[in-house]
């Protein structure tokens, strides 16, 4: 119990420190790069093992994006409180704290390659699976108009680790994403909307053979970011 409390506190402190640090960094000279940071409202749908464990929740998030030449990096921290859905049998709510880090390299046309990792911790620990994985994929971005960009991304989640054990095949975990950014106030502010879908085809084995215990999350985030 003490360990769990420490973990949650660490996550909150990490988020707060990151946001503060990311807010301070732009005061330095960033002439050769673009940097944006801002808060978001997050809302999601979480399912695990069967349709009975169905949660819906909302929370806050913070995202920071750094662009430098052909490279860009996204860091997204989100914290949602998932409550049992009416159509399920789950009784306890839990907090999900998620970190997404993505490094992106522009290849050609609208295509960029992505590499990163994600980590989601559930609190209380036994109410849902904490999971971590390395992400690899691609993003297609398109400029809809002046200051309006949309991006579609997809990729696989490799080396998934679960707090409750289990494993996933190489192609068993994947993610999809859809994003929209709209520049406002002469590009100083960016309105952001992001959608992310994750599915882990997790399997557990208690000695009687593989038992499917999939995990699935749809996460939407709407917010704004200050551009420096």
């Amino acid at each position: 119990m003490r360990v769990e409390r420490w973990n949650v506190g660490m996550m909150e402190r990490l988020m707060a420190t990151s946001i503060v640090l990311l807010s301070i960094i732009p005061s330095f000279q960033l002439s050769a790069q673009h940097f944006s940071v801002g808060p978001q409202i997050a809302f999601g749908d979480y399912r695990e093992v069967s349709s009975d464990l169905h949660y819906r929740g909302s929370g806050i998030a913070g995202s920071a994006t750094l662009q430098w030449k052909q490279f860009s990096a996204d860091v997204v921290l989100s914290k949602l409180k998932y409550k049992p859905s009416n159509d399920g049998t789950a009784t306890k709510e839990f907090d999900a704290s998620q970190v997404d880090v993505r490094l992106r390299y522009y290849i050609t046309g609208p295509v960029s390659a992505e590499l990163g990792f994600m980590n989601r911790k559930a609190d209380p620990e036994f109410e849902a699976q904490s999971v971590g994985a390395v992400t690899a994929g691609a993003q297609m971005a398109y400029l809809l108009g002046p200051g309006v960009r949309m991006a579609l991304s997809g990729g696989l989640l490799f080396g998934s680790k679960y707090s409750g054990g289990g494993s996933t095949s190489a192609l068993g975990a994947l993610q999809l994403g859809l994003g929209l950014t709209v520049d406002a106030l002469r590009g100083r502010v960016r309105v952001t909307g992001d959608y992310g879908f994750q599915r882990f085809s997790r399997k557990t084995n208690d000695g009687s053979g593989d038992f499917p215990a999939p995990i699935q999350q749809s996460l939407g985030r709407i917010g704004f970011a200050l551009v420096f």
Partner: protein
Amino acid sequence: MRVRLLLVLALGLAPALCAAQTVQNATLRKAQQAFDNLEFRPALSGAQAALRERLTGFERARAYELLGFTYSGMDSILRAVDAFKQVILLEPERDFDPTRTSPKALSAFQVALTQVLVIRQLHVDSVTFVGGQGVVAVRYTVTQPARVVTRVLGGGPQTSLRIDSTVASGQVNIRWPARLASGDPVPAGDYNIVVEATVGQNNFSTSQPIRVTHGAVDTLPHLTSLPGYTYLPETEVPPKSWKPMGLALVYTGIALAGTSAFSSGDLGKTSLREGSLIGGGVILAGFVMTLRKPAPQPARGNILYNQLLREQISRRNTEIAQENTRRRQQVALSVVPVARQGGGR
């Protein structure tokens, strides 16, 4: 005050100057009147009498001229030639209008010209050129075959440049580069172009004053554009299209369809709430962008064209800078003939 003084002097000297170029001698005027009345004998005796009197150079030339015309009218060609020779010696530049002169007198004058060594019609053209890259055109007419030496005198204590030496008859054209023996341009100053003709014991010389001034050679202005070539816009607005809307639909469709497709069947009906909300925003943005004026896109062809144009202008400006550096070390020579004082001798 100075202007008034000059005006008074000019008004005071004007009659004297006019008198110098008109016949004042009464005998000569009477002889001229007789010639005008075609009375050759009185004209002849009058002119001869006038020549025995004290005459100005101009009057003496007119007296011989009258004799020449009178002898021509009396068909005494040899005497006419002798009289015209005196006219030529007194006024080497003297010429008659062929349309208003009798052919006899004209032919006698032409014969006289061939029998007297004079240099006539010495002309120096006004010219401006960069030192070492141009010439001063000098031309004259020598009436007899003679050794003619052309020199430039003045401009300094010891400046005497022989610019030509030739045996010639008739019109002679000389091109003087206005350079010293060292190759440097002649210093600024007043010069005399002296032409000396010699045949045996006879010689004749005439001169034409000129003024040489130095100036800076004009430098070339740097180019900001090439004539006939203008920069093209580096961005161009593409025609309005439904592509943003279409792509927004495609992207959203892929995201939602992917969500449905990849959802696990064991987890119940897929939640599209989050995807639909964000996807709806994307589609709305695509629709708005379709209605809006498209964003200007870089025009690659124009960018390359402008780049070439800038390189060309830069290259040309580099050449101009080098040319200007060279020009600043050069001198522009202006050669202007100055009014002559008197004739040759």
